């Protein structure tokens, strides 16, 4: 076990997990994404920014296999993939719709285990471990309607981790949360991604959030959606909410991203 993670760690940055090759997405006559290329490597954290309507969500749905490309291809571990896979988990922005209100926290995590055919006897222990991993220990019996937005999003992340995914796709997962909760969840997410060596693809409209989390930032330009620029983030890890955000490199990137996004503001 230790050995394999060691090997993975040395290979990280080179081992390709997901690749998009000149993919275009159309809805009817409208071209939403046009010839997009991107490679996601194992353990990498990639954020996607871009003005509203530039196709960030569509990009994520393309990687998820929820929409098929009209041109080009999406390769998952080298094989073309056109339908959702259990190894690619999706954290939706609207956690209220993504969770099942008639199941408590345990039940919602259990859904992923049931779908994967995990025997009943094994589920309870794994559910408890997952819930405590996302900071929901003690809330096992709470229903989503009894939880704050931050707790519900944690619960959705726990359900995604229950899939034991290779890739974690997240669509503005913290967009609806207050600043304090958001920063807390950012740090927890970084820890989870580091520990599980999962590849993260994170859509956000918050530029500082993108810099704080990323190894790489993909900037989309709209009409039609295209990869406009890729920014490498070389900030040291582990990141820290205070010191990282004060580093000159952080401020330089922040400036660059603002300049980029400003071009599209009316």
């Amino acid at each position, binding site marked *: 076990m230790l050995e394999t993670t060691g090997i993975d760690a040395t290979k990280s940055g080179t081992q390709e997990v997901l690749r998009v090759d000149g993919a275009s997405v159309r809805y009817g006559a409208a071209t939403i994404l046009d010839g997009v290329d991107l490679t996601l490597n194992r353990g990498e954290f990639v954020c996607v920014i871009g003005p509203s309507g530039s196709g960030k969500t569509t990009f994520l749905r393309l990687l998820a296999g929820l929409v098929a490309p009209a041109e080009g291809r999406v390769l998952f571990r080298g094989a073309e993939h056109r339908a959702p896979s*259990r190894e690619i988990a999706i954290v939706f922005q609207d956690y209220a719709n993504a969770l099942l209100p008639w199941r408590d926290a345990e039940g919602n995590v259990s859904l*992923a285990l049931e779908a994967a055919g995990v025997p009943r006897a094994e589920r309870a222990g794994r559910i408890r471990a997952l819930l405590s991993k996302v900071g929901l220990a003690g809330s096992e019996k709470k229903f989503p309607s009894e939880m704050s937005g931050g707790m519900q999003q944690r619960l959705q992340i726990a359900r995604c981790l229950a899939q034991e995914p290779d890739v974690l796709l997240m669509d503005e997962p913290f967009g609806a949360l207050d600043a304090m909760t958001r920063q807390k969840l950012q740090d927890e997410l970084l820890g989870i991604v580091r520990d599980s060596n999962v590849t993260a693809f994170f859509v956000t409209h918050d530029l500082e959030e993108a810099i704080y989390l990323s190894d790489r930032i993909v900037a989309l330009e709209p009409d039609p959606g295209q990869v406009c620029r890729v920014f490498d983030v070389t900030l040291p890890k582990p990141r820290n909410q205070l010191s990282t955000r004060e580093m000159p490199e952080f401020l330089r990137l922040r400036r660059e991203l603002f300049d980029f996004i400003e071009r599209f503001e009316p």
Partner: protein
Amino acid sequence: MRHLHRGLWFMASLALLVALIWGWQVLADARILPRAFFPGPDRTWRALSRGFASGTLVADTLTTLRRLGLGWVLASLLGVGLGALVGTSKWAQDWVAPIFEVLRPLPASAIAPVLLLFLGLTDSMILTLIAFGALWPMLLTTVHGFSNIHPRRKEVARSLGMGRGAFIAKIALPGALPDIMGGLRLGLTVALILVVVGEMITVQGGLGARILLAARAFNAAEIFAGVALLGVIGLVTNALLGLVETRALRWQRR
């Protein structure tokens, strides 16, 4: 506060019931209609206790309850099952749903003679009659509930790799349950009507047959006793279903 409110309402409806029975007694005592056609609560009650003492009324009540229960369960399985099929399959929507549109307006009582032809004077005929009449509200509410499932839930099911069966059992049905419960209640009312109709046609025991035979014998008190008992059955079964609904939909009130 809410309990007090509920208690007051319960007392009020109880008082109304007592008042109605008292009014019925007054009307019967006034002899506007001949006593032979219009017995008061006193004579109805006597017919009831006589029937229970001899055991025949108990047997008939149990027979009716058994047919009602079986017919309603049959209708629920068919209605919810077909509803789930139509609600999750494009194919069924295109090919099966139009057939329903033809069958649905047929009054269940009108197909009773047809069923009689095929099934004879049997329990199966009564159960089929109930199932045919009572499955519609269940089917329609299930289809409606399924069509209201948020698209995100379908995407969750797909990304978790759930098959159609698991999707129906774990996501669609529980999500549609608030709608379906309404259909189950409506179906119960229809089932009670049709069990009586069926028993009056087959005359193989049960309260429907008992009422029919009492009518042929001009035994008004016996008729009223049967009707009163059917009223109680309707009330109690509906209340039981209400309890089940409250339990099953507990999550909605959190």
